[in-house]
């Protein structure tokens, strides 16, 4: 007897991101949908950054978790609509903050490229995940992974990662 959509969700609900293990793939918005297709169950994922090296690991983790649960399901990658940090759940963002990573702000309204680059100085304050101070400074656009930028708190002096709006 084949598994139900609910059973697949139950098996995958808590599967953690391999890079940031405090947050689940569902909370990150990578695990999009489980559906019953004509020829079997499908687990739909949407990749984050094009070159994120964790995507291969994520597929492997999904496959082995399904196997362990004795569930036969296909993993389907869906590119559109493109993954956005706006899909991250509030509970997921809270877990990031507790882990020491400042969660992403809402992505800014998509203006044209010309307008975007002509107004580079619209920095939004990124509160320090440790002390909550808004007196922080971006030290680099790019952090330990493609999805993060480097910041430093000018009050408690803690350096931290900021999950960039994408």
């Amino acid at each position, binding site marked *: 007897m084949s598994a139900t959509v609910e059973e697949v969700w139950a098996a995958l609900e808590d599967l953690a991101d391999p890079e940031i293990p405090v947050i689940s793939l569902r909370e990150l918005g990578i695990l999009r949908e489980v559906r019953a297709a004509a020829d079997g169950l499908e687990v739909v994922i949407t*990749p984050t*950054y*094009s*070159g*994120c*090296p964790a995507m291969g690991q994520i597929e492997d983790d999904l496959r082995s978790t399904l196997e362990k649960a004795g569930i036969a399901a296909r993993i389907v990658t869906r*590119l*559109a*609509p*493109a*993954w*956005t940090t706006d899909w991250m759940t509030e509970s997921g963002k809270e877990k990031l903050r507790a882990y020491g990573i400042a969660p992403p702000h809402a992505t800014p309204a998509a203006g*044209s*490229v*010309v307008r*975007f*680059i*002509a107004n*580079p100085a619209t920095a939004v304050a990124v509160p320090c995940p440790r002390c909550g101070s808004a007196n922080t400074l971006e*030290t*680099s*656009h*790019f*952090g*330990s*992974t*493609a999805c993060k930028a*480097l910041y430093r708190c000018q009050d408690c002096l803690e350096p931290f990662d900021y999950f*960039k709006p*994408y």
Partner: protein
Amino acid sequence: MSAATDYLLHLADNALVLGQRNAEWCGHGPILEEDIALANVSLDLIGQARLLYQLVAALKGGDCTEDKLAYFRDTHEFRNYTLVELPHHGPLSSYAKASLDYATTIVRNFLYSAMMALLWEALEKSADADLPAIAAKSLKEVRYHLRHSRDWLVRLGDGTDESHARTQAALDHLLPYSQEFWAGSPAESAAIAAGIGVDPNALKSDWDTIVDAALAEATLQRPPLGGYVPEGKQGIHSEHLGYLLAEMQSLARAHPNGVW
């Protein structure tokens, strides 16, 4: 080959070749943050190339794979702009060596990112079934690349005498290569006619706006154009691409069908 596959290969080869070039900074960055930034940019570019190669492989069918497209084509089959294959230093020929020059890296990334941000934005409306999704993802990424390279262009151009001189020299060397952005090619014309591609000349005034504003802020002078217009996107490359491909492809060719 169809209009779509030729055009998609052009986009993919741009991303792969520049991704490989920028990765030369990995472990050699001028400061740790920039080392990490360039590695991140490279990862994005190689990721974009993979999505496009996978699409081409699916369109071509048979035993075509993304790896075959990346590792088992030769110089004349690559369709990237000549700009992205040039080494990270001023004009020297073949295997003559010079130190990696960060001004060259930054100017090239800025010119290319400004072009690609506009092109990906326009390609979100491509008539191709799959290209708009890749364009939407790539646009999010290239906006970060554009902001990064523009910030450094201003910092270096409006910096010390040394950084200004080197950035101006890099601009004088590289800007003429950007003429290839606007020169047509048969593959582009076919893709535009099919509604898959975008006419780059429709993007030129926006590109000029972005570039001129940044150059003014960076106190750099726009050099006069003219001279040879490169034809990398038609497979006619500088001697530098062969060396880059030889390094990139040697492992895959030494162990064909290797899996790890």
